[in-house]
């Protein structure tokens, strides 16, 4: 299992569009991927899960993955978050 902590940098936080970016990226990997925040642990391939995280600006997320491509998966998702989802 691989995991990595990232901080949400963009002003609006993880709303619908960022959530869909994360889910789309997660779907590319075979590993099970989860995002942990504020006591919740959601499936990163579930748009509903990611949206309902309600992670605003400054939130610290943990991305964890378990599977054949776990390392790549964690890196890719973490990069999308720290990049601010191409916003701001």
């Amino acid at each position, binding site marked *: 299992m691989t995991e990595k902590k990232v901080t949400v940098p963009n002003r*609006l*936080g993880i*709303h*619908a*569009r960022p959530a*869909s970016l994360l*889910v*789309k990226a997660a779907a590319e990997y075979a590993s099970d991927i989860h995002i942990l925040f504020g006591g919740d642990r*959601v*499936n990163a*391939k*579930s*748009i*509903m*899960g990611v*949206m*309902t995280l*309600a992670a*605003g600006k400054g939130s610290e997320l943990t991305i964890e993955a378990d599977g054949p491509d776990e390392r790549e998966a964690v890196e890719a998702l973490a990069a999308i978050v720290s990049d601010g989802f191409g916003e701001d």
Partner: protein
Amino acid sequence: MTDSGRTRLSHRFDGTPGSPGIGIGPAFLLSVEELRISRRNLSGPGEVEREIRRFDAALENTREELRRLSKNVGDLIEGKQLVEIHMMLLDDPTIRRDVQDRIINDLVNAEYAVSQVLYEVLDRFSRMDDPYMRERAADVRDVGRRVMAQLMGSEREALLNLDHPVVLIGRDLDPSDTAGLDREKVLAFATDKGGSTSHTAILARSIGIPAVVGLREVAEHIQPGQTVIVDGIHGTVIIDPDQDQLHYYSELQARYRDTEENIARNATEPAVTEDGHKVELSANIEFSQEAEQVRRYGGCGVGLFRTEFLKLLAPESDDEETQYAAYRHVLETLSPEPVIIRTFDLGGDKFLSELEVSERNPFLGWRAIRVCQDRPELFEPQLRAILRASVLGNARLMIPMVTHVEQVVGIRRQLDSVADMLESEGHSVDRDMELGIMVETPAAALGIDLLLPYVDFVSLGTNDLTQYTLAVDRGSPYVANLFDPLHPTVLRQIDHVVRACHAAGKWVGICGQMAGDPLGVPLLLGFDLDELSVALTLIPDVKRMIRVMSMDGARDLAARALKLGSARRIRRLVLDFVIDRYPEVLLETVENGEDGE
């Protein structure tokens, strides 16, 4: 969750009789979106598998629907993003798993499982702090609705492929629900909404199956497959009856069938009073298939052929040809008896979506002749169809809701020009077809002398005449008790109209509900109406009344009623008259629901 702790009780619901008769059988629920989705417990692995397959198929079909939608939104970035999010919601693995888990673990139908998961998800959204995210609940709801519609679509398919007879239960039956329905497989209807003139009631009467309408909340108390008794005579529905109730209603069912046979035997007797006065007794119909029934019930033609349903049931179809086929069938079936075709009475409470307008007082607004004269594209095909059919039997044309002389003059002119057009196209038409009006407003009743020069006959629509005279909407529970066609002002108008018509040498009939009322019949006979037109199923009762009455007695009664000052006193007078002289009439008259104009 199990039902084991609950005591099983039969439930009784009271509504409005929609169509007489008794139907007993398993319930088939027509799920409607706003309805709380009914929970059905699955019997075993086979059913579980079937429900999961239905759910997967619904997801796949919704995906296909979204793909098509995405093409249609074109280059709109926002639209594309929205569809994309909807697609992701649809593909969401956790939601899918949650629904499957519920089907498997709780042994419930797919609709119920989806609705429960949706509630949970929506609840989570509604508790989010960010207002933007709270609004995403709308997206979830939208996708959920699409999936539900797909699931119910497959239910509709099941409805069209019934392998055993059922009792159809729903909030309301839309024409689209009942189109293509196998009538042999439907024992009865029961609906939450609707009155005795709603689509459901009319359809049920026309095909002769029992129905109860206006039950308010029966649909959510019935589980699919539960045994239901529908008593369309008294307007009662019983869910999960006990042995005594089943026994009682089976007997009632048999008795009702006997009455029906009795009716058929009396059909050939003439509608003549004891002292030899002949009354035209005809039928109110709304479907062309009812034409065959008119003779069976002993009617001598059609006093009111409502045409709205030709339009409401098949709004997309080729207007003129669909209507022509319907008029032709009725005219040919009943020839040489007269058939009075009333032009579209749309508006008021009968809407066509393309004509739906927002008015504060629809009954004082754009309805009937007012709509027709403003919309030639709606009205002209109707006039063409009627004129073309006019040569095939004894057709008469009747215009509803007339208030102004110009309206009648306008129709005359339009009829002439449509007839010219048809003849130039090589059709033959009956140039002498009688044109009549419905008198259903005080304007037409008090101004009958102004209208008579332009018409061949008159038919009183006493429901609307009462509503407009007394300014009472009988659909309003607050004022419905003030509605009474025996009110002195309504009777005075009827008397006035009949006298004026006879003085002008024209015939006058009535197609209102009053003509089928045991208290209305003696009065109307006494007022010298030439024709009474009533719902098919009421013909035998009314005929029996006419046959035992004397014209002298009826005239005397009408004269005395006109001298009384209140509806209550008139009602008392007529009731005493009937009880005194013809007690058997009241005893024999089965409550057949109501129907009329």
